[in-house]
C-alpha cells in the first residue's frame, strides 16, 4: 500500500538488539538517498523519529535481534503493519554479537552486571516497570515472526541495501550477487 498522496513506497526501519551500524551503512548509499527518496517515504524510523508504524507500510527493515520483551513487541508491531519484513544484518539474522551471551545463564549475566562487578556500590537488579525485561536468550527475528527477506552482513554494505531496494522498486525478485553476500 503505497503512500496515497505521493504514490511512493512506505518504508519503516528500526533497530532492536543492534548497534545502529546497519542504519549507518544504509546511509552510506550517500547521494543515492536522494534518488531513493523520489520513490520512497520513510514511516517509523530513527530517520524520521516517527515512533509507531502507520497502518499500512510496504517494507520494514529490522536491524538487531531480540534480547528483551520490548524488542518482541516492536517486531510484532512491524509484522502487523508491514507487507514485506526484512531481517537486516547479522544480529537480526542469527542474534549476532549480543547472542554471544547465550551460553551464559541469564541469572549469572544479571548478577555479574548488577550485583558482583567491581565498582558497584548499591547492588540491585533494576526492576522499574519502564525497563524491558530480558529474554533468557537473544534470538534471531525469524524465530518469532515470519521474515520475508534477509540481508546479511555486519553491517550489510550500502550496496546491499541499494541492490535490494532497487530490485523491490523495479518489482524484481530481490537477488544479491554473490560478491555482495558477506557475514562480516
Amino acid at each position, binding site marked *: 500500500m503505497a503512500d496515497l498522496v505521493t504514490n511512493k513506497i512506505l518504508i519503516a526501519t528500526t533497530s532492536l538488539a543492534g548497534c545502529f551500524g546497519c542504519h549507518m551503512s544504509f546511509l552510506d548509499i550517500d547521494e543515492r538517498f536522494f534518488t531513493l527518496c523520489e520513490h520512497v517515504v520513510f514511516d517509523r524510523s530513527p530517520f524520521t523519529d516517527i515512533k509507531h508504524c502507520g497502518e499500512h507500510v510496504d517494507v520494514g527493515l529490522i536491524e538487531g535481534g531480540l534480547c528483551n520483551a520490548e524488542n518482541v513487541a516492536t517486531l510484532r508491531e512491524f509484522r502487523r503493519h508491514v507487507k514485506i519484513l526484512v531481517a537486516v544484518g547479522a544480529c537480526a539474522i542469527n542474534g549476532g554479537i549480543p547472542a554471544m551471551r*547465550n*551460553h551464559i545463564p541469564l541469572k549469572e549475566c544479571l548478577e555479574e552486571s548488577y550485583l558482583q562487578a567491581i565498582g558497584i556500590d548499591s547492588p540491585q537488579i533494576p526492576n522499574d516497570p519502564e525497563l524491558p525485561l530480558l529474554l533468557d536468550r537473544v*534470538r534471531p527475528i*525469524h*524465530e518469532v515472526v515470519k521474515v520475508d527477506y*534477509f*540481508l546479511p552482513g*555486519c553491517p550489510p554494505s550500502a550496496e546491499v541495501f541499494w541492490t535490494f531496494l532497487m530490485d523491490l522498486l523495479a518489482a524484481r525478485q530481490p537477488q*544479491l550477487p554473490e560478491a555482495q553476500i558477506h557475514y*562480516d
Partner: protein
Amino acid sequence: MLTIDGVALSFEAGQTLMEAATAAGVYLPHLCHHPEFKPHGSCKLCTVKVNGRFASACTLPAAEGQEVLSETLELRQLRVRITQMLFVEGNHFCPSCEQSGDCKLQATAYALGMLDSHFPHFFPARRVDASHPDILLDLDRCILCELCVRASRDMDGKSVFGIAGRGMESHLVVDAESGALVDTVIEVSDRAVKICPVGAILIKRTAYEKPIGQRLYDHHPIQAVLLQADQGGGSCDQ
C-alpha cells in the same frame, strides 16, 4: 566417460567422483573433503544425484556412464540447508571471528547464496580452550569435519584430536587427561593446527595480520580457490 549436469568428462580408474570433477574443473561444494586425505564423507555438502540416486561425490568411485546431477534446484537447496544446519548447531558469529574472510564454511555459504540460517539456532554451550601459549581452540566454531583429527593422526603422528560423544553431543576432544590443549604434544608447526577450515583452531597473535575485508574469500570465490588448490596449485589452508 561420465557426465556432470550433462557435460561429459573423463576420469582415471580409482578416482572418486569428487576427484574426477575437480580434475575437470567442476566445483562440488565440500568441507570435510581434502585432497590430501582419505575421503571422509561426513559433511554431505558434495551430495549429488548419480543415475537418480543420492550419493556423496567424495566417497563414490567414478564409474563409466554415470549421469551425475549437481547444480539442480533440488541439490542446491539441499546444500544450503545442510550448510544452515552447520551454522545453527554451533555458534558461528562471523563478525567476532578471527577467521572471517578466510573461513571455508563462510565462503561455501557465500557460494551457495545462503542469506539466513533458516532453522532455529541451538546456541550450544561449547568450550573455549586458551590454555596453550600459541594455539587457541574455540569449539563454538567446530563443524566436526575431523580434518584436524586426521591431520594429527596421519600426518603429525600424534593423535592430538578426536571426536567423542554421540549425535548432537559429538565434540572435539584432545589427548590429555586434563582435557586442556596445553597438556598435549601439539606444536604450532603441526599440520593439524593449520588445516581447520573454520575458526576453531587458531594460532594466537596472528588473527588480524590481514585486516577483515582483505582476506582470501573476501575477493575470491571459494569455487575458484578450491579448484586451483585441489588441482595441485598449492594449499589454501591457513
